[in-house]
């Protein structure tokens, strides 16, 4: 009986494709790859798409960006699935460093959180400079059924920060017990759009807000310029002693690039609608100390000392 020629052809094509992919994989692995785990709030701003190609050209490397919540980004680093993390949640960062999986935490840039909500402002928080008081009013109005609040509920830096404010008020909000508290479980952009649809309040970082502003017709910035709303981002390297196969050298190069004068300047120049999204922090020792980086000067010295 004849062996169908098409079957043989299909098998040959199959082997060729697999071989091709394997070869391509081999080729692409010639360029060193740096895996950066970061937060959606940084990624969604588009800043990395502007910054990283400049680094890649200079260092002949390829940066793969995994964009998730801060909690997951740190977990990815802890498991050794990334070389470097760029996140914003002080407590999670410190426990990552304390566990010795992460090393050389350094503040790199900052922006600030803002409370946004419907222009009609049913909770009456407009122009407050005390974010805790604003949260209290939203909660109070929420119980009366006049206001709702959308939470990221994804263990992201923004979410952790939001929960910190609630805990200062002695509240542990949850969708289950409070009808006014909506746990979205999604990224910042989605949460902003949900808030816009529902006429809810939410806490956001300024950069994402600026990126989405045009789509959020019914919303306004209601609370800003509260000192505690400052939102600093940190770089942490994955400990090469834990994962010797990771690209530690690449991670170091990327970190050095971002905290270098050139990198800091590039960050400051990244603007949307004429507004600066992230402000340089790495070389402002005093400000960094205030924002929770007591070792900033030591770390900066350490990074500057490392050979590129």
């Amino acid at each position: 009986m004849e062996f169908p020629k098409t079957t043989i052809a299909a098998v040959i094509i199959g082997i060729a494709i697999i071989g091709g992919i394997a070869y391509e994989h081999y080729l692409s692995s010639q360029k060193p790859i740096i895996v950066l785990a970061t937060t959606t709030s940084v990624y969604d701003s588009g800043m990395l798409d502007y910054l990283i190609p400049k680094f890649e050209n200079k260092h002949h490397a390829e940066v793969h960006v995994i964009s998730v919540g801060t909690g997951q980004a740190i977990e990815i680093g802890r498991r050794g699935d990334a070389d470097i993390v760029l996140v914003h949640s002080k407590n999670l960062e410190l426990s990552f460093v304390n566990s010795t999986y992460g090393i050389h935490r350094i503040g790199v840039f900052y922006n600030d959180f803002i409370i946004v909500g419907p222009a009609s402002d049913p909770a009456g928080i407009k122009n407050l400079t005390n974010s805790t008081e604003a949260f209290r009013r939203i909660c109070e109005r929420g119980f009366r059924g006049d206001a709702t609040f959308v939470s990221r509920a994804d263990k992201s830096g923004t979410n952790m920060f939001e929960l910190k404010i609630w805990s200062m008020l002695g509240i542990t909000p949850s969708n289950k017990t409070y009808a006014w508290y909506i746990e979205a479980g999604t990224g910042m952009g989605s949460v902003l759009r949900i808030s816009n649809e529902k006429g809810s309040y939410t806490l956001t970082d300024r950069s994402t807000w600026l990126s989405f502003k045009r789509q959020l017709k019914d919303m306004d910035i209601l609370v800003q310029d509260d000192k505690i709303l400052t939102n600093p981002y940190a770089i942490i390297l994955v400990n090469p002693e834990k994962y010797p196969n990771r690209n530690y050298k690449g991670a170091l190069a990327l970190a050095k690039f971002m905290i270098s004068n050139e990198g800091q300047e590039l960050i400051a120049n990244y603007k949307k609608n004429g507004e600066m999204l992230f402000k340089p922090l790495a070389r402002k020792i005093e400000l960094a100390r205030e924002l929770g980086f007591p070792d900033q000067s030591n770390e900066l010295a350490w990074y500057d000392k490392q050979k590129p």
Partner: protein
Amino acid sequence: MMCEKMFENTFLEEILNITLLSLKVSGTAVLIGAIIGIPIGTALGFGWFKGKMMLTRIIDLTLKSIVNTFMGLPPVVVGLVVYLLLTTSGPLGPLGLLYTPTAMIITQLIMAVPIVTGVTMSAIGSVEKTVRERALSLGATDRQAAWTVLREARTGILTAVIVAFGAAISEVGGIMIAGGNIRWVTRTLTTAIVVETNLGNFDLAITLGIILLSIAFIINLALTIIQFRGQKR
């Protein structure tokens, strides 16, 4: 003017890159899935494991149950399992495959194999007895009869492959976890739609959605034509 031009180019280039990657990942997964799934489905369809012995029967039943369970496997669960296998501290960590197209191919392969196996199994099962007996009775050897059954089940087997490809190309949860959705590297049509929607880039999301729909439409068109031919005969 120059700037706009450049933007246009990268925009198209990225869409092309995303589309090709989707086709490559799903195509490879389904191709390997077919190479694995068709023989297993054939063996199960022919009842080669269905001996008189208790053990072979248990193997047959177990395999069939596994196939049926895995046919409805939630992609995100597969993605999670692949992630846990490939993560640096996981059992296959040293291969360094996490967040690569290979990881996505593995994820979709795990979903494609049961689909190809299951559909092949039922396609062969439905013609196996009558065709085999007719072939034997016309003087075929067992091997010739088996080839004839395969030949008669070809429409069903082709359907199996197309169905698996359709499932793979429209899958999102699994490859998001295993592939990491890295721009230019592991971003496919479906994961790009998720990300662009989150970013509020609805123009790009819709463009990608239309491409995905077109691919799905072509797949279904092919399937309908094949089935129509089958009916006409």
